[in-house]
Every structure is written in C-alpha cells, then in structure tokens.
C-alpha cells in the first residue's frame, strides 16, 4: 500500500498518537455529528475548506487558522476520511498538498468502511490545544484553470479525464440523481475521456490494487507519460482521480480542474461534446 493510504486498523491504533490528527470531511456536512472516529476533527467543506466570498480554494490565512485550531502544526500527520468513498477527504488532501503539508494520508475505505466494521464512534465534538501553522504556496502546478483546459481541449495537449457518471458525461442528466442541477448545458469537454471515479474503488470503499488502477488508465491511453487534467462537477470527485493518478500511481503531471462542469457547462460559447 502506498504511504499516503492507511487502513482502518492503522487509524484505530494510531488515532490518539500525539503527532497524528484524524480529520473527517464529508459531502453530508451533518455526518460528523452522527458519529465520528473518536478524537477526530470535523471540517465543513462548504464553509471551512473554501473561500466563501469568491469561488476559490481556501485562502492561505484561513487554512493556517483552520489547521492551528485543529491542533495541527507543520509536522503533524494528517489522516483524512469521509463519506462517499472519501470524495471531500480527497478534496482536502489536494488543498493541503497545494499548501505544502508534507504528511497527509487518506484512510482507505473512508467512513463507510469504519462504520461497516462496527468500530468505535463518538458523537462528542473534539477539542484541541491550538497550534501555530505556517503554510506555503499555493502550488498551482496541481490545479488547472479554465484557459489551460480550453487550450488542452482545443489542441489535445493533455489527457482530459471526465470522472462523472456516464449519464452526466453524455448529457443525459445535468447532475447526479437526486442532487440539484448546477449547469445550463449537459455533455462533456471536447476530447475528454470518460473514466468514472467509482472505477477506482472496490465495493467496500477501498481503492483497487495498483495493478488494477494502472490497467484502468492504461486502457484509456493514460500511462503517466503526458499531462493529465481531471474534472467532474465541482472538483471533489476529480480530487479522488487526481489522488489516484498523482499519489497512488505516481504520475508526474496531473492537475485537478476544480472549476469543472459547473464552470464549463455554464460558460457562454464554450464548445460541448455529446454524447
């Protein structure tokens, strides 16, 4: 297993270590209150992991404050987990790497596996002695912005990976079933390949083996020898694919396009491919 992944067993054994902080980040921001790994911090992606004024990642000062009040300093091992097979745990991982945190890991299987294994849960909000955190960056080599994606699509300069469901890719639906529609047009960025994020995972929420993952992407011509840009709807599902390509498979040039379909699918005049 790559050193950026830890098992639920590892978390059970190390969650109280002084240099380890477990952090839950969920799509459903109420999930933490329904029971979490004892001692874990809970971060709300809608308010704490973004700029709430401008659409953007978390500003550096806000990140430093968040980490500091979570009892995290620059040497802390941060272990992230969450619901939906770690969608927003991966989103947090991506941002922490942009801001230069050295030791970030993901609990393989996420919240689903922890609960399914009937492990200890707490409903008490954890509190921490504050620490001082100093971030660097952000390292924008991990992030794709619209002009780069437009260029990549037009010139086929990078492999664009659409990690949404096939029905979103074709434009049959505008958002995952049951969730609000957040775009004006359905379809995908011209030239993108459809490799849904879920293909990275086993049924229990853990990541597939490195050989299986390597084959999944190699079959689509993605072998780590060229630039890759992953996107979804708002950038969290594509964080999973970014994590797999960059940190499990070790591909050098992988970016997450967090503007994703909520940017492209609302852009006046942007070309759209269907199905």
């Amino acid at each position, binding site marked *: 297993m790559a050193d950026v992944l830890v098992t639920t067993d590892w978390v059970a054994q190390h969650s109280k270590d002084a240099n380890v902080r477990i952090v839950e980040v969920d799509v459903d921001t109420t999930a933490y209150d329904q029971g979490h790994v004892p001692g874990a911090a809970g971060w709300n992606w809608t308010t704490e992991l973004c700029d709430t004024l401008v659409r953007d990642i978390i500003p550096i000062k806000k990140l430093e404050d968040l980490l500091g009040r979570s009892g995290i300093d620059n040497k802390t091992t941060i272990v992230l987990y969450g619901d939906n097979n770690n969608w927003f745990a991966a989103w947090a991982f991506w941002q922490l790497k942009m801001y230069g945190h050295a030791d970030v890991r993901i609990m393989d299987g996420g919240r689903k596996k922890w609960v399914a294994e*009937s492990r200890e849960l707490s*409903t008490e909000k954890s509190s921490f002695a504050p620490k001082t955190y100093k971030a660097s960056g952000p390292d924008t080599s991990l992030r794709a912005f619209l002009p780069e994606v437009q260029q990549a699509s037009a010139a086929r300069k990078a492999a664009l990976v659409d990690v949404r469901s096939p*029905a979103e890719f074709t*434009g049959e*639906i505008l958002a995952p079933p049951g969730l609000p529609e957040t775009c004006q047009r*359905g379809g995908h960025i011209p030239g993108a390949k459809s490799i849904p994020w879920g293909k990275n995972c086993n049924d229990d929420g853990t990541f597939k083996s490195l050989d299986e993952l390597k084959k999944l992407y190699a079959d689509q011509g993605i072998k780590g020898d060229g630039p890759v840009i992953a996107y979804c709807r708002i950038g969290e599902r594509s964080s999973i694919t970014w994590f797999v390509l960059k940190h499990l498979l070790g591909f050098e040039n992988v970016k997450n396009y967090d503007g994703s379909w909520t940017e492209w699918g609302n852009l006046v005049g942007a070309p759209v491919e269907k199905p």
Partner: protein
Amino acid sequence: MKAEGYNRRRQDLGGWPIEIETYKLGDVYYCTINNVDPGARFARAEGPTREHAEAMALEKAERYLAQTRRFTVT
C-alpha cells in the same frame, strides 16, 4: 459507541438505482440514501426504529429524484 446492525442494500426508486445504508448508534437509527451512479449521498433521516428512519429517508429521496430530469441524447 459502536454502530450496530449495519446494513447496505440496493433497490430501484422511481427508475433510479439507489443504495440504502442503515445502522443504529446509541438509541438512534441513521439511514442514508446514495445514488448508485455516481455514488453520492443525497438523502438521510434518523428515527427511533430502522423502519421509521428508512421510510423518512426514502420519502425524501423519492422527492429529490423526481426533480432529476433525463434528456434524450442522440
């Protein structure tokens, strides 16, 4: 506390495949509904019994799914 009676199953709701996950924590049953593809949690409820929590969550899920439009793709 530990989750008890963890159960995960799939069924169809309004033409959409969904996954229902239910467990008991303390005296409360928690139920969450995911769409199978792409696997997003979109409805949840809690209650004093498994049946109550699931019925409430399914009612919400059905309401939300009814708002999802399908477009013909050619």
